[in-house]
């Protein structure tokens, strides 16, 4: 038996390998990033997509070909992928489509703490939620079985403490569902969602969910997805995910109904469970999703108090919930916030933005740290790609003197992810004062641990491929002034250029290109390994 200590992310990759997943794709995002990296290291076919929507669509294509696909993203990534997701629920799949959504309750490294269990209800898709790495491994097999048996995409919800926590995993490839060959069969009425086909498809989806609901009541228990743990009759706990483990520790002798299939719910079983104990409490992290759903069906359960919607749960918080403790919680230790690395190429950029007193519509990445002292240059941060639209909106509304100070600042990976359509908007509806977009091209996705992306010219496994040209795309879209500059080698030139562009009424894109200091050695190594010039971004200065 192969036993190892590994993270939930690695466990998902191991299971994907053992189940013969044909393709893994996604977009980096903490805490999901390591899944595809581990899948690649294990010899799986793993690739980064430009964003989550594209990843989901690629995964859907794989699953239309009767093969198995794994698509990974952080919780907010599912917002980007939501459009195809909702209709993929109608089309269904012939192979398997497993969509990992890695939620971040407590926002260790995210801009919000949305609870993606809501998406399962909204899209009408089954959702599976493991509590630790062993379950992450086992449940991937169950997810594939459900996806193939009901011809339906399956949402696989993990959270930070499931993704990153390490625990012991016993690997058992013999438990993986047998694979089939990829093939294509026309099935236009199922996959071409014109209204005439979508109407019956919606009914088919609801019929599948009804079947799954029945399955949840007994078979899901036999399959180990849902678990009943008998215990005290005066306290019953309905749990899911890592909250189950906190609850087991806080109240080891309570009765438990643990839900690994969080949608659709095993309503009858929970109802009987709640009736069998004096007091039934739902212990769940995030929104009271299970409690609301159960109470809507008249199942007598108690929800946690509102304050536990915020942040992660832990053993102490579960004890407080069970004890009905109302006093204020002790504050967690206040740590030191992160800061830009001392030799980060963003320092001169932020000095200049500060000195020119810019109004900065910012975006998400390492460069968001520019919001902290000593620079405090970021004025907005909302969602990936939002720098462009928000900056344009500010330019449209503000009086001229202030409008001229507005700059949209976006990273290279973020630009490819969702900045391109913002540039199109900029040329389509230009503000009277023009606009300036600053692309901080550090030639990596630094925020999430230095992943490749299309503009690095290297694939997930660092081998060369066609390089996406940020400056080339800006020119092709019709931006008036496109410049590439190294802000470290020529800080004065960078300041002069930005000042000049802010004063003009042009539409400008300035690409500030200088590698992330932590990624630089790796970039040199991959470039040396690559045969030929592919994969090398043109040096700044050659293409102003």
């Amino acid at each position, binding site marked *: 038996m192969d036993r190892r*200590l590994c993270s939930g992310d690695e466990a998902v990759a191991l299971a994907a390998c053992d189940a013969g997943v044909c393709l893994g794709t996604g977009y980096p995002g*903490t*805490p999901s990033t390591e899944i595809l990296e581990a899948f690649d290291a294990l010899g799986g076919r793993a690739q980064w997509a430009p964003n989550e929507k594209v990843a989901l669509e690629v995964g859907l294509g794989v699953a239309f070909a009767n093969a198995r696909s794994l698509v990974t993203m952080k919780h907010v990534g599912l917002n980007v992928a939501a459009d195809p997701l909702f209709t993929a629920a109608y089309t269904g799949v012939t192979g398997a489509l497993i969509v990992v959504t890695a939620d971040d309750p*407590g926002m*260790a*490294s995210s801009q919000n703490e949305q609870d993606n269990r809501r998406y399962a209800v909204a899209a009408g898709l089954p959702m599976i939620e493991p509590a*630790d790495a062993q379950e992450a491994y086992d449940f991937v097999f169950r997810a594939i079985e459900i996806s193939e048996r009901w011809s339906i995409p399956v949402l696989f919800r993990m959270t*930070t*403490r499931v993704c*990153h*926590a*390490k*625990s*012991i995993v016993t690997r058992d490839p013999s438990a993986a569902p047998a694979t089939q060959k990829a093939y294509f069969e026309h099935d236009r009425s199922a996959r071409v969602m014109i209204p005439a086909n979508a109407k019956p498809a919606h009914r088919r989806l609801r019929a599948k969910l009804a079947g799954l609901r029945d399955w949840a009541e007994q078979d899901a228990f036999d399959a180990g997805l849902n678990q009943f743990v008998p215990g005290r009759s005066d306290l019953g706990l309905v749990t899911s995910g*890592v909250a189950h*483990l*906190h609850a*087991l*520790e806080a109240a080891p002798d309570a009765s438990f109904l643990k839900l690994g299939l969080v949608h659709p719910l095993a309503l009858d079983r929970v109802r009987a469970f709640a009736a069998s104990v004096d007091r039934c409490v739902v212990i769940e992290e995030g929104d009271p999703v299970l409690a609301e759903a159960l109470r809507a069906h008249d199942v007598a359960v108690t929800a946690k108090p509102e304050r536990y919607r915020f942040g992660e749960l*832990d*053993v*102490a918080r579960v004890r407080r919930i069970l004890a009905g403790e109302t006093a204020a919680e*002790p504050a*967690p*230790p*206040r*740590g*030191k*916030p*992160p*800061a*830009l*690395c001392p030799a980060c190429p963003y320092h001169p950029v932020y000095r200049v933005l500060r000195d020119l007193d810019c109004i900065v519509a910012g975006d998400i990445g*390492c460069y968001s*740290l520019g919001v902290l002292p000593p620079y405090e240059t970021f004025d907005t941060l909302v969602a990936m790609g939002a720098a462009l639209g928000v900056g344009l909106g500010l330019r449209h509304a503000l009086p001229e003197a202030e409008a001229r100070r507005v700059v949209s600042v976006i990273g290279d990976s973020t630009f490819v992810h969702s900045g391109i359509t913002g540039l199109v908007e900029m040329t389509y509806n230009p503000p009277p004062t023009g606009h300036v977009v600053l692309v901080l091209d550090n030639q990596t996705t630094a925020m999430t*641990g230095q992943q490749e992306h299309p503009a690095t010219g290297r694939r997930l496994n660092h081998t060369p491929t066609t390089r996406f040209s940020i400056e080339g795309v800006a020119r092709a879209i019709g931006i008036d002034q496109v410049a590439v500059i190294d802000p470290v080698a020529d800080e004065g030139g960078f300041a002069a250029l930005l000042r000049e562009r802010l004063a003009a009424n042009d539409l400008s894109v300035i690409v500030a290109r200088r590698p992330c200091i*932590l990624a630089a050695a790796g970039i040199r190594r991959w470039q040396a390994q690559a045969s030929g010039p592919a994969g090398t971004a043109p040096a700044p200065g050659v293409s102003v």
Partner: protein
Amino acid sequence: MRVTNVVFAGLGGQGVIKASDILAQAAFRAGLDVKKSELHGMSQRGGSVTSDVRFGDRVYSPMVPQGEADYLIVLEPSQVEVNLPLLRPGGVLLSPEIIPPDRLSNKRSLNVALLGVLSGLVGLDPDAILAAVRQALPERLYQINERAFEFGREIAERG
């Protein structure tokens, strides 16, 4: 064996997570149930990092409840005070001052030196922890770290 709770704390880049990985591996190889977890979203950029390791016959939650750490190992002086509430009454604090900096040929091996101190206290075979150090590091770094580990062990023996 009841559950032993260990928390490592420091700043990004100091090897907090490496140290906790090593201890977790040693406990795993000793045949114990192990869980470890941390938040490492922005850790590479010098912010605070803590990492929890729990081992025993059966471990449930991957997080050490506040005020229940048996051992708190801190790699950076400024992080001692803020993390003290994690320690249980009577728990053991290992702070960086116990390793005189001039005794380490490379200050980056502070994490391993403190593991050496911990190795005599934590109920695992110290040699098994050293073996886990060897496995976790590239060969060229091993000698420096082995010396740091042994130095930590001596300090613990001297009390």
